[in-house]
């Protein structure tokens, strides 16, 4: 955490580069999303100042628990999103565990009372087969949600590609569609519509993602009974995560095939060539300056050439 000196957008850029590097060179990388349990409630009771104090204490804890120099992180709503490069999966687990227990040791004074906090941490690791930056962030987020709804004071790691498949043995009776399955069918149908509809894909998808997340959350609410139920829900999260990413991929391909540049622009996103509107004026000035410098250089070189030519001609 660079104490807010680089803004979240800049840190985000750095994180994308970090992820990219990790994919290219096969170096391990972990994303952590860290939330303080009941932070909203603490905020209501003790005010904004306490909230800030708590968040910055978490920052400090995070820096102290990692090789601070390697850490990149920024606030993500009420949570902190951090990338820790060069960390193997099992060490990332240990780090998350350390943060959870470290948070338990933090105390704050407010209104003459001593407050203690706990945290919920979501962990996503490149070893778990995540192939895009956004997906990795999403996995960390989902895992943090899960840690939180399980009661907080814990970490959770989503492992999308190691989620066990549920297979029916041959001949086993096909279960009647449950309420849940009906809901899923509805969602799937809406997704299909989003994909085949004209325009506005991104918006529709956004809306659906919201719905799916809400759905996931309500299913977790009533999941406090028994570990097997947890496990099942975790699998569902993994499956939904997978489904979402496939949907995103499909949306992307639909969108790009309608784009004005067609296939030629397919890699623009990958190479960071978005046509983002940030700093347009400033960039234009810079580009003009580069161009002018190159034009000047071209002229000097041409003049040089013609003068050495005439010299050459004169001497012969």
């Amino acid at each position, binding site marked *: 955490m*660079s*104490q807010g*000196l*680089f803004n979240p*957008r*800049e840190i985000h*850029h*750095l994180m994308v*580069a*970090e992820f*990219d*590097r*990790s994919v*290219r060179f096969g170096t391990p990388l972990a994303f952590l999303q860290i939330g303080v349990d009941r932070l909203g409630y603490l905020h209501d009771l003790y005010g904004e100042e306490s909230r800030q104090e708590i968040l910055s204490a978490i920052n400090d804890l995070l820096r102290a628990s990692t*090789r*601070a*120099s*390697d850490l*990149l992180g920024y606030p993500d709503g009420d949570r902190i999103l951090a990338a820790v*490069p060069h960390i193997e999966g099992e060490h990332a687990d240990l780090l998350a565990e350390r943060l959870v227990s470290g948070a338990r040791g933090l105390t704050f004074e407010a209104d003459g009372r001593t407050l203690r906090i706990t945290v919920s941490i979501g962990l996503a690791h490149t070893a778990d087969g995540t192939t895009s930056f956004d997906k990795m962030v999403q996995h960390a987020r989902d895992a943090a949600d899960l840690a939180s709804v399980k009661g907080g004071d814990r970490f959770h790691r989503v492992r999308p590609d190691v989620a066990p498949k549920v297979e029916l043995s041959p001949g086993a009776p096909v279960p009647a569609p449950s309420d849940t399955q009906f809901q899923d069918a509805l969602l799937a149908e809406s997704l299909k519509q989003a994909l085949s509809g004209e325009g506005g894909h991104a918006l529709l998808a956004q809306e659906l993602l919201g719905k799916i997340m809400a759905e996931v959350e309500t299913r977790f609410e009533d999941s406090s009974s028994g570990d097997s139920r947890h496990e099942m829900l975790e699998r569902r999260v993994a499956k939904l995560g997978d489904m979402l990413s496939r949907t995103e991929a499909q949306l992307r391909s639909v969108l790009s095939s309608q784009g004005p*540049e067609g296939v*030629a622009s*397919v*890699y*623009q996103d*990958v*190479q*960071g*060539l978005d046509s*983002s509107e*940030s*700093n347009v004026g*400033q*960039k*234009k*000035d*810079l*580009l*003009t*300056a*580069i*161009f002018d*410098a*190159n*034009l000047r*250089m*071209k002229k*000097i*070189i041409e003049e040089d050439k013609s003068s050495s030519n005439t010299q050459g001609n004169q001497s012969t």
Partner: protein
Amino acid sequence: MTKSKKNHGVLYLGIDLGTSRTSISASNGERETVSSFVGYAKDSVAEKSLGKSTLFGDDALAKRMSVDLYRPLSKGVIQEGEDTVHGNGDKEGNLRAAADLIKEIIARAKPRADELVYAVIGAPAEASIHNKEAILNAARGSVDSVMLCSEPFAVAYGLDMLDDVLVIDIGAGTVDLCRMHGTMPEESDQLTLTYGGDFVDAAFRERLEATLEGASFSPKMVKDAKERYASVADSMEPAIVNFPVNGKPTTFDVTDQLREACRLIIPPIVEGLGKLVASFDPEFQDRLKDRVLLAGGGSQIKGLDTAIEACMHDMLGRGTVQRIEEPMYGGANGALKIAHDMPAEYWEQLK
């Protein structure tokens, strides 16, 4: 470039021409990096056994007995004379090698005959006009239009950090410092130090020679050990190497020697930062100190960002340093972004 029909859009290229590595990043998704070595077969016998007359990168280095080896960009610019550690010294040879290297890296981006090819090349700020001309001429043979820009500027542009940022780009030959403040950096915004990776290698080697009695090691072994373990941290992973003594492999712990060598570059870098800060608008000096980006292959020395921060606190009162990841492609990606954002009419005018 032949005048074939160019009707299938534009391929943009970003090229980072470095002492030790030359990288390309292209809008068609290609990314390539090759170490900046070029080797020409010594004679027809060698050519026959190599299967080709020109080798590039590590290939050239590996076959150095059969080729005339050039490292055309040592110290970041095309060498025009003096003998270099790894390369031949002759000027003509270096110019030819630089041209061939540029052609090769562009070819590796697989441009198609029916595409317009526009390239931005990140080159060291202090390259002479003669040098720049050579680079441009080399590129013109393979692209339709080409521009040069300074390497650290490309890094910052690629990360969208255009305002009040100090970029430290630690390459092999040089460390380039560049101050960004929303307009094109000028001469006074840039500083080049000769304390890059090669300097660390030399200092490390000196220390090894002084302390490891009887051990023999090549420059490559020294560099490999550095790249594997380099750190400036007090508690670092022990650097254990295997060097032969009288032909017998022997294990040495070279942690202290390596740490010492790596630490040598910190004070000059911070001094350089201090100079760029001091000549900046006083109102924004603190902001500048708090927005330092660390880039280039040498930025992978572990703990370097924290150590520079600490040294800045001592020498300049404060400092925050953020390491950018992707040292191999930071410059090339930025150059690609510049190429892509550059208005088409500018490209046209430079054809």
